[in-house]
């Protein structure tokens, strides 16, 4: 006989308001193997935990069941509690009387109590079969991988590196910098984006602990927390980074001009190029799709003019395989494509542009040298209309969510336009102005009060060309009248949306995405930068729309989590792993193929058969690799694989207990 203690928690009235806790405890006391049962107001509080510890001693209990909230909530709490009470933490089970009973059966107290009793019986039946388990320890690779070299990625990398850990930044573009590098000024301070990002980029490049692998992508991830094995594809740059000095001669001489992605196709770049002057690394890459040499085999000028012979047309993609202890995902966002809006011209009107386009038009090193000229005829616009929530808060054509940044950057744009174009007039069509940040509301008020931007509350229904003007039709919903403005240029505050390959990366990393394809955090409030996969953290807009301050803050948070992990020499792994009954294992190794973590391998054992020793093959589980999914246990034909903590015997006992 075991000596099980059952502790029923009222959780104030949360449970006791529906379930008759006293009755549950009384009934439980009658179960076989139960030596003691009681109920109490709050089991998770200190007095509650003391009650448990004392009971363990008084009634020398050898197993404990707590019937309270969800084990996802307090299992760790109570395991720790009984451990300090002198029991192995795994000699413990919980019955979920709150989330899965009282809260969902409030309208049927009687049957709720019956169910509660069943759940407790189930927990008792299981705990009776529990065995003491020990955690195993694994060593940790002291190196972090940061995916994405935008401001979030750079910040995370710097913080982790400053703590003394080697960091690799993998950036898919030829240079780090991300979106912030494209932006001209930042709200609410209107300081120059390049001036605050530039130094950080240089710091990252110069940092002894940071390695930047640009023009590259993560292709495959193996392993587990503390020991990820990552395959990185370094795309053929056609330029030997070791030799290249970044003198720029090749770019000058290259005869092929193509639209610059960095300048939102408003300006040109060469076929061999660095995306922007302050690029890091400041060394070019050949765009093989547009390069004449690669298209026709002719040309080859860049190679001829290169003083250090760094141009290499034969260069191949390179696969780098490296071990990392922690991964920070900072892949950011992409802009919503407004060609979905037929009523705004299907993206065909040249003078209907997006926020990022305007950033490039305002930027001194941009295609117009900082003069705001509209794309169609390079005329300086005197009237500009801004439209918010394009692709945001719009289930029909875009996303249901709010992109969080548009209200502020639109205010910033209106301010900058009136500064750059004296006498100009801005109209801002909005649904709500959301300014929940330090100094944000004040900034917005300045936009209207000092810079005279005319805010009109209402979604725009149609934009159309009339002569060389654009007519914008809206409703001023505050006076309840349809209104029209004739403007020279329209700027759409388009939504932030997940990178188109976010789903693919999530698959590679084994993390999840939400319904909008943003990476999901482990807990919306309490674990905002963790993912459900241990050792992988989130930073910046990859997790959801964010402005620069928030991205940087979150990057810091993600970094500190990574640092915490890397600061350990070795870490404990979960004790609930698979184990093999070697005497019954036939060594077929079907389990090996099934295991997603390559945790099962063959092993030879000595056996005495008929008086003489023979050697035969059996399966063996690597306890630090095993993540405890239990797939192998079902696959095993002999049923000789079992999952500690979730053994066949335990689960069958639960089944029987609830079916009675």
């Amino acid at each position, binding site marked *: 006989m075991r000596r099980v203690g059952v502790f029923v928690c009222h959780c104030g009235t949360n449970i006791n308001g529906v379930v008759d806790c006293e009755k549950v405890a009384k009934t439980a006391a009658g179960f076989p193997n139960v030596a003691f049962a009681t109920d109490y107001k709050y089991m998770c509080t200190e007095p509650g935990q003391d009650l448990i510890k004392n009971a363990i001693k008084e009634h020398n209990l050898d197993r404990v069941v707590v019937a309270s909230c969800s084990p996802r909530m307090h299992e760790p709490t109570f395991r720790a509690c009984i451990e300090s009470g002198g029991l192995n933490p795994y000699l413990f089970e919980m019955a979920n009387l709150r989330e899965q009973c009282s809260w969902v059966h409030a309208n049927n107290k009687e049957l709720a109590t019956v169910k509660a009793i069943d759940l407790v019986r189930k927990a008792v039946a299981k705990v009776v079969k529990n065995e003491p388990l020990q955690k195993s320890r694994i060593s940790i690779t002291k190196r972090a991988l940061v995916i994405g070299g935008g401001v979030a990625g750079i910040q995370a990398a710097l913080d982790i590196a400053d703590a003394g850990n080697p960091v690799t930044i993998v950036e898919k573009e030829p240079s780090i910098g991300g979106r912030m590098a494209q932006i001209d000024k930042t709200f609410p301070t209107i300081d120059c984006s390049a001036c605050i990002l530039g130094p950080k980029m240089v710091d990252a490049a110069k940092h002894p602990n940071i390695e930047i692998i640009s023009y590259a992508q993560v292709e495959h991830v193996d392993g587990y927390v503390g020991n990820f094995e990552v395959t990185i594809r370094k795309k053929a740059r056609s330029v030997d980074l070791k030799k290249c000095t970044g003198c720029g001669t090749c770019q000058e001489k290259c005869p092929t001009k193509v639209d610059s992605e960095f300048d939102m196709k408003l300006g040109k770049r060469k076929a061999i190029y660095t995306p922007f002057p302050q690029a890091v690394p400041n060394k070019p890459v050949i765009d093989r799709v547009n390069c004449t040499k690669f298209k026709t085999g002719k040309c080859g000028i860049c190679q001829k003019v290169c003083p250090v012979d760094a141009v290499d047309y034969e260069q191949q993609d390179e696969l780098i395989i490296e071990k990392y202890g922690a991964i920070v995902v900072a892949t950011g966002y992409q802009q919503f494509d407004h060609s979905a809006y*037929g*009523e705004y011209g*299907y993206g065909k009107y040249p003078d209907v542009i997006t926020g990022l386009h305007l950033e490039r038009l305002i930027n001194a090193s941009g295609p117009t040298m900082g003069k705001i000229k509209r794309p169609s005829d390079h005329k300086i616009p005197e009237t500009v209309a801004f439209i918010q929530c394009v692709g945001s808060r719009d289930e029909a054509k875009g996303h249901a969510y709010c992109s969080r940044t548009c209200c502020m950057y639109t205010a910033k744009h209106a301010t900058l336009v009136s500064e750059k174009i004296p006498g100009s007039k801005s109209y801002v069509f909005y649904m709500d102005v959301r300014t929940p940040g330090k100094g944000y509301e004040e900034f917005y008020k300045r936009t209207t009060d000092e810079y005279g931007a005319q805010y009109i509350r209402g979604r725009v229904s*149609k934009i*159309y*060309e*009339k*002569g060389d003007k654009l007519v914008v039709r809206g409703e001023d919903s505050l006076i309840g009248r349809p209104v029209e403005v004739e403007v020279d240029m329209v700027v759409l505050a388009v939504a932030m949306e997940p990178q188109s390959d976010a789903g693919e990366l999530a698959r590679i990393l084994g993390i999840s995405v939400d319904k909008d394809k943003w990476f999901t955090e482990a807990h919306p409030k309490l674990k905002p930068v963790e993912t459900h996969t241990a050792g992988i953290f989130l930073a910046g807009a990859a997790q959801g729309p964010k402005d620069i301050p928030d991205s940087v803050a979150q990057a810091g948070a993600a970094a500190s989590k990574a640092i915490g992990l890397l600061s350990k020499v070795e870490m404990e792994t979960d004790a609930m792993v698979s184990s093999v009954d070697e005497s019954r294992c036939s060594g077929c190794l079907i389990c090996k193929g099934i295991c997603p973590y390559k945790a099962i391998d063959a092993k030879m054992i000595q056996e005495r058969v008929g008086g003489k020793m023979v050697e035969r093959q059996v399966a063996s589980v690597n306890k630090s690799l095993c993540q405890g999914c239990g797939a192998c246990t079902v696959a095993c034909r002999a049923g000789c694989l079992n999952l500690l903590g979730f053994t066949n015997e335990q689960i069958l006992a639960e089944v029987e207990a609830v079916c009675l």
Partner: protein
Amino acid sequence: MKYAYYPGCSLHSTGIEYDISSKLVAKRMGIELKEIPDWNCCGASAAHTTNHMLGLALPARNLAIAEKEGLDVLAPCAACYNRMKTTELAVKASEQTKQKIANITEMDYQGNIGVKTALEVFVKDAGLEAVKALATKTLGGMKVAAYYGCLLVRPHDVGIDDMENPMLMDDMVTALGGEAVQWPFKTECCGASLPTAKGKVGLKLVYDILSMAQSVGAEAIVTACPLCFVNLDMRQSDLNKKVSGSSFKIPIFYFTELMAIAFGEKPASAGAGKHFVNTSEILAKYNLK
């Protein structure tokens, strides 16, 4: 190819040109039209905004008759098409609605046959190649603004083309050698019965459409709806009287008239002589006499 033909009330009176030209085009395209025997009015927007079921029942009776003959319906009039399509979809969507309708019409329309409109059959289904092939004359670069109005494109499950920038008629014009001027008011509303029922309000809509067409240099407007046609064609003189400074003289055509003429029919026999705004001038200019 054979269809049950549903002209609808307009095509037997104010929209007679549409009736004539549609039949001509069908003939040229080898499409047989069998008029629905003893058809009734579809109720237009008056019915469904007065009585929901009536708005479904009136078209249902015609569809039921056509179903007996096992023919899909061809309804050139945009309003008739829209009402019939709405009924078709409603019946297909819900058994209950189907029953309700049957009780009122005392006929059972099962939803086995559907309805199409002229633009769909003559251009979308037939294909531009077929249209080109039949053309013996060219529009010779005539600047035409294609006006679709509401009922052919909205709502999207009823509509036959893009809601914001439909192209079927534009493509047809181009295929016949005309220049389809691109303009932003292709699907603006002409006010339907408002110009009649509520002069001031309605006329403004017609005015906006005409002046936009004028400003983009359209020499003619082509349409596929008798109500749009009447509003745009008949109201021009009215507007010229009422709105100072306006001097509209834009010929309006049914797209079927232009097709018939390009296919070699005499403009007069295609109905082009019955318009309020004279068409002979522009037809002469592009020697389509």
